């Protein structure tokens, strides 16, 4: 097989997954928030407004795309791509089942974190090149919070790697049979909080704080460029939820159900779990107020970082003790 035959189907698969997820998630967000807020959400197009997002996407695609006069053109055009591409790449390593995945990477977890850490670069570029003071503030906030929380998030995922003995996401899932790693509750909470911030979710959605910055770094973007920024945000939410499922909630597995029975329905189980986590995120989004930027940074540097380092040590110690006491039957 030539390299084209290998690469093109995989990129297309990731792209299809991302777009489909985006469309479903936008509809889901509007419906969930609507019902939380005593209203119905979209109701007009199709049954319960199910075709609404399709029309929204069509509208974004056909919209005029004005470029503000004072923007830094090169950066302004490339910034949505810098945000979009890493978030597309992050789909590569996600294990939907033993066999269904885009690439089987030995260092899948590290790869996912690595590509996701490129996203702030694009957001800063978008905020900076827009030549708008509010966009700049939004971009700086996004970078400030995401840089502060990358380290705690990675450190919170480290206990899982130590317990599973691998960075391959598939191996991590298989290591959670029959007991999900969520029993390591502190690691789960640390990961979840850091991930909320990393993916820009309420109560930590400072970069787009609508009551302060209106739309933050996306203010000057319109049409499909805005669509790309918007889509990658939803995609990051999905990836964060999928990582939570993979690392802590047993991935595609169900406890005590043997692998052979699981195989055909594994991707479905994985998706259902992921969407349940996303539902939780949306309920949080519809309920909580937003923290202030200094409170966010204080929480990150003074609490999450030291605690996650300490928890890595404690987990390591417990694993080592277990190996010593039970003679290495890990």
């Amino acid at each position, binding site marked *: 097989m030539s390299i084209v035959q290998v690469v093109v189907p995989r990129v297309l698969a990731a792209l299809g997954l991302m777009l489909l997820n985006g469309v479903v998630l936008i509809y889901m967000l509007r419906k969930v928030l609507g019902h939380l807020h005593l209203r119905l959400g979209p109701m007009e197009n199709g049954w319960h407004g199910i075709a609404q997002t399709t029309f929204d996407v069509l509208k974004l695609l056909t919209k005029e795309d004005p470029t503000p006069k004072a923007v830094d053109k090169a950066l302004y055009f490339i910034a949505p791509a810098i945000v979009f591409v890493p978030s597309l790449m992050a789909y590569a390593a996600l294990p939907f089942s033993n066999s269904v995945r885009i690439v089987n990477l030995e260092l899948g977890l590290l790869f996912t974190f690595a590509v996701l850490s490129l996203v702030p670069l694009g957001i800063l570029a978008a905020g900076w090149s827009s030549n708008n003071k509010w966009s700049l*503030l939004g971009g700086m906030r996004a970078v400030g919070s995401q840089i502060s929380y990358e380290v705690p998030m990675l450190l919170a995922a480290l206990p899982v790697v130590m317990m599973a003995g691998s960075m391959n996401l598939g191996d991590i899932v298989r290591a959670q049979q029959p007991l999900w790693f969520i029993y390591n509750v502190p690691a789960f909470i640390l990961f979840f909080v850091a991930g909320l911030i990393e993916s820009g979710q309420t109560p930590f959605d400072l970069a787009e704080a609508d009551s*302060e910055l209106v739309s933050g770094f996306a203010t000057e973007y319109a049409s499909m460029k805005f669509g790309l920024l918007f889509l990658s945000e939803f995609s990051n939410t999905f990836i964060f939820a999928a990582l939570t499922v993979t690392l802590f909630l047993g991935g595609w597995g169900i406890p005590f159900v043997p692998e052979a029975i699981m195989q055909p329905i594994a991707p479905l189980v994985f998706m259902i779990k992921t969407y349940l986590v996303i539902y939780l995120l949306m309920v949080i989004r519809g309920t909580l107020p937003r923290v*202030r930027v200094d409170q966010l940074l204080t929480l990150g540097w003074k609490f999450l970082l030291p605690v996650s380092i300490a928890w890595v040590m404690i987990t390591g110690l417990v694993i080592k003790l277990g190996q010593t006491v039970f003679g290495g039957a890990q």
Partner: protein
Amino acid sequence: MSDPREIGRPSGSLAAPDGILPAGTYEPEVLPAGLTRAPVGVNALATEHLIVNMGPQHPSTHGVLRVLIELDGEEVKAGEASVGYLHRGIEKLAESRRYSAVGTLMDRGDYISGIHNEMAFALAAEKLIDVEAPRRANWLRSLMAEINRIASHLVWYGPMGLDTGAMGPFLYAMRDREVLLDILEDVTGQRMMFNYVRPGGVLADITPAAEKKIRVFLETFDQYLDEHIEILAGNEIFQARMRGIGVIDRERAVGFALTGANLRASGLSFDVRKDRPYAAYSELDFSIPVAQEGDCFARFMVRMEEMRQSVRMIRQCIDGLPEGEFTAKVPKVLRPPAGEAYGAVESPRGELGVHLISDGSDTPYRMRYRPPALYALQVGESLLPGVLLADAVVILGSTDIVLGEIDR
């Protein structure tokens, strides 16, 4: 006491302090005489302040307010509110309207609490023509005013949630406000621009349908109010955003002539309803909630508690509504004798006063409208230096400003 506008205003306000142009201001190519340019560039390691326009099209300015904010990173160095985007010249227009027509102008002042605006004018006009409203009219005025007060506080409570980033409370508040507006519509025929309180009495009597709706509302709202308080005040993030932010001490509150809930949150118990009773308030049993802290959270809790007191008053009004006429006999065209009068009510935002001067003709010679929110905006502005941008939004929101009233 020194000039109240100077309290809390730092030296680094928008004016040039010591011969150096404030960083971040627009610098023309040719500098004015005596000014040097602030150092910029990597070698000097100087940072520039950013001057941003919050508003007039900004979601958190509660109307069309423009606040010029000088930012050092996220920190507000100076803030200057610029008002007048909603100016309609209500005071001037009143000079060419008959007394019976001024009520429609008053509604458009503070459009969220129309009943109070009309009442302030009606009280002043009644003093001029020396007519007393009948007892039933007074009770109806109090009843409608308290219903309007809850509706108005809900319009403040919801956006307070939005200002801190919580979407939900806004829609829950609108649910309850809808019921109240229905009641007001039943009685007055309008949802916001009522023109209900007229010199001499009120426009119409309460309808049986409205009475029934009020009773249903009274049954449910106590529980809803607890929910409202719990959903925001019970939230740790919300408390962290509100406590200790935007503290107005007593001296500042008095210096800025603050009234209403903003004043009472600073520990001073002044309420026109108690201290200069009008309508039926001397006969109603209610208490004035007061808090000592003076921060945003105190203002929040005082307003929430005020809603509870309003519910108490509505209950008393609907149960004890006296029989009789709902309006006194007043001529169609009022021609008060020359003189002047001041009528004041406790609107949801504070002491709302109308000063009328008559020259004996059928139109006021001069009308002066005292908008309480204008003073609240000024005190909010004086609190801006030194806070974070997110706090600025919360401080302006917590003082409950309505731009229709400020700009008049």
